[in-house]
């Protein structure tokens, strides 16, 4: 396909207006209607260190003049993929580069400040902690930059009582990432600080690029499922699954993705039937073979083996909120997994946030569910969570294993 009309003059005008030192990107992607282009011009200014300030976004609807008829579908498809790839490459690689520049400057500045501390201990052990939303990979990259700038010969690899500790901590404020250094200096510690803007973090990728929520269907049934919990048997091949219905509790063993029923026990029925029947399952924190079932006005302990043995007492406990702790093998950080709590006619998403993030912060990873999430629980190892979902498309109640995956 050949187009007579050039789109560049308009784009160049934008570039000319951009301030010095700015990076401008012009992305052309075909409009869905097939007879126009959307031109997006992004100008990224390195203004006051607020690097990803989007100076101008121009959306132009330009009708191109074609002098040839082409097979729209195939060409548009290929162009779409190409342009989309281009867009992602341009935006995210630029963001990453800007982040690297800003953070590297800060790290080197901090190393310089630490080195200039008078009466500094000559050799010390480096303790590096990340309390910010920076990903662990990025944190480790910063650590490497710091060691390089600081000089590895002044650092020891092992910590013992006689080795002074140089403590570096990455913190976060509303606008900055703050690097704090506590430098051993005689009997005291000196504090040195360096900052770089939060905006230089690649947008919502610092965490989510490396973390992914995955779901595995464990069980489904037509009858309502109120709660479910899975526990790994530590051998990696088999797990125990408890499924709470409105009238019974069932014990399954899951092997190679197939669940086999081992036992079912009727649960104590409330005097008054409720449309909003709630129950909660969890494993005992101190006794791994004991599970606890919480109903409206009863709490039952049960031994998990081949069979179920329920021991119930009258007790009133509030059901837990729809969020659980989840641990990650990727970075060994505790995460909070919760549903976005839509109403029951709308499919939910599971959202992953670090404990330091507020509810208004973007989540580190998200997972679309096929319906509203009715219950969430996690076992004592908290490497997996179990979600009960009402599948809006099929009308079945489904139990999913939710796990955190590393890498892309």
């Amino acid at each position, binding site marked *: 396909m050949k187009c007579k009309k050039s789109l560049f003059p308009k784009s160049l005008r934008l570039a000319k207006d951009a301030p010095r030192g700015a990076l401008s990107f012009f992305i052309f992607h*075909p409009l*869905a209607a097939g007879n126009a282009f959307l031109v997006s011009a992004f100008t990224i200014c390195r203004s006051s260190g607020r690097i990803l300030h989007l100076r101008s976004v121009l959306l132009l609807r330009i009708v191109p003049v074609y002098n040839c008829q082409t097979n729209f579908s195939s060409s548009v498809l290929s162009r779409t993929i190409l342009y989309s790839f281009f867009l992602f490459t341009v935006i995210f690689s630029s963001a990453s580069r800007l982040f690297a520049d800003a953070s590297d400057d800060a790290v080197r500045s901090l190393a310089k400040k630490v080195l200039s501390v008078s009466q500094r201990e000559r050799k010390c052990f480096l303790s590096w902690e990340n309390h910010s939303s920076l990903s662990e990979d990025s944190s480790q990259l910063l650590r490497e930059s710091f060691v390089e700038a600081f000089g590895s010969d002044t650092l020891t690899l092992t910590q013992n009582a006689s080795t002074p500790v140089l403590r570096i901590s990455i913190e976060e404020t509303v606008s900055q990432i703050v690097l704090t250094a506590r430098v051993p200096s005689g009997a005291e510690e000196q504090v040195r600080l360096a900052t770089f803007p939060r905006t230089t973090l690649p947008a919502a990728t610092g965490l989510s690029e490396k973390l992914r929520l995955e779901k595995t269907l464990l069980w489904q049934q037509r009858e309502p499922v109120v709660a479910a919990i899975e526990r790994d048997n530590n051998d990696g091949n088999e797990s125990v699954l408890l499924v709470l219905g409105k009238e019974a509790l069932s014990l399954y063993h899951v092997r190679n993705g197939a669940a086999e029923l081992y036992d079912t026990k009727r649960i104590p029925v409330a005097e008054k039937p409720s449309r909003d029947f709630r129950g909660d399952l969890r494993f005992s924190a101190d006794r791994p073979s004991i599970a606890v079932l919480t109903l409206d006005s009863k709490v039952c302990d049960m031994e998990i083996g081949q069979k179920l043995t329920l021991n119930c007492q009258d007790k009133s406990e509030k059901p837990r909120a729809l969020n659980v702790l989840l641990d990650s093998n990727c970075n060994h950080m505790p995460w909070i997994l919760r549903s976005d709590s839509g109403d029951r006619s709308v499919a939910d998403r599971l959202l992953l946030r670090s404990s330091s993030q507020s509810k208004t912060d973007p989540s580190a990873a998200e997972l679309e569910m096929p319906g509203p999430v009715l219950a969430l629980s996690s076992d004592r190892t908290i490497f997996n969570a179990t979600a009960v979902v009402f599948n809006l498309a099929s009308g079945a109640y489904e139990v999913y294993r939710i796990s955190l995956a590393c890498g892309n």
Partner: protein
Amino acid sequence: MRSIASALLVAISLFLGSTFSAPFVHAAKKPHYGGVLRVELRASNVSLDPRTWKPGSLSFGADEKLASLLFDRLVELDNYGHFQPMLATEWSHDAALKRWQFVLRSNVKFSDGSLLSVGDVVSSLQPLLPDSQQISSSGSNVIIQSSSPIPDLLEELSSGRYFIYRVQPGNSLIGTGPFVVAESVVNSSSANASSSSSDSVAKSNRLRFIANEDCWAGRPFLNQIDVTLGLPPLRQLLDLQLGRADLIELSPELVRRATQENLRVWSSSPTTLYFLKFDDSQPVSSDAKLRQVFSLSLDRSTMAGVLLQKQAEPASALLPQWLSGYAFLFTMETNLERAKELRAALPLNLTASGDPLRLRVETSGDLAKLLGDRVAINVRQAGVMLQVSGRVQRRTAENFSATNSSDSPVGLHLIGWRYSSLSPRLELEMLSSALARVDASPSSLSGSDLDSSYSAEHKLLEEQRILPLIALPEFVGISSNVRDWMPSRWGAWHLADVWLDTPENASEKSINNPVSQQQSVVPGAKP
């Protein structure tokens, strides 16, 4: 095939668009225009004139929240750490960070229809900026020049008093914000006073804001915001429960109750610091050991955990972690045994007259009084007698440490300080400047970087003349029909983006809101 390709393209475009606009998309319902948001506040009076606000005063929060309905700033900080263009569309600075240039958004109108000019920006900010910063205009640009680097100017301008306004004849102010003041009513007077300006609302019990149809950022969703002032916390909670209010200020002691009753509760990051300040004009405060006794005997965890039912945080620093990033480096030890030992080494009568030491609670409200009483209990356990008294007249943060000659000598002051700036440097400068009225605390920092702020704060705290107690967040009770409640963690409410999910809105949309289709597609659109 063509339809599949088109669908794919639409999907990709939408995805790409959403990547750069909003991380969360509310698929369930679309925003509605219309409705009246009923807000209830504890403050019995507010000032909508930023020039009159005192940094650190507890009323600052309410003043700022309501003023943000009327006025805009040059820039705004979002929840993701990005500075968003508001009345300024672009900004740049020189290499030394001493000269900043802002390009003003064109065709922005004040609520009276007149155009915003660079002159308005200069005359707005001139009286508000620190003495070290000079503002001027050049063409359509605004220049801020400083003798020292100001790397945090954007943080400074996106918070606190730095609103853009125009002074009208009669000293009233108008702004470019999403709402205008329609009416202010004084309940105590039989003759209701109505006004459309913002100067005479300070003594009003009720304020009515109506949507600014011509707001540059788009008309707000709400038709109107009715604010009732001076309501006690329990009454506010009752009103929320009974559906007579949509947004209330929750006091910390009512948060647990509200949560247990399944009310929507939002809390900010800590926004108010309570601390003790020794009065350096009194000889007793010069005793370092006595100050150490106080420091070691204060049980901040109990104050935060029991007295405030875990709704506050024990404070060891002057600036909170979310603002400075280094607050965790400060620790305050509680060691009653050591405090007793130190007390035993002090004279039996700490004051020359033999009277007990006096702590004056400088901040109004029951919470400050409770904290004062708790401090007295803590130090009594270490063997120090402390008499707590309240101020007869409420003092502002500006003069809290000034001792009236007619008052009897006071050894300590208990002070509440409301954070108002997003710049740690400026916040600390304002705080130390307020403290410096009676002693030699540093009123300005030696540099503009975070190291200087840390050093200044360390210096303020190391002599233990100032003892942080607790840091308290703000709590808001929200009715279930309030949608898109997306406040900042530092307490900005963003009511222009809020909409009400009520059945009446559907009919009101066609009757009262002749908004364009484009507005409903891009609600509350911002640049």
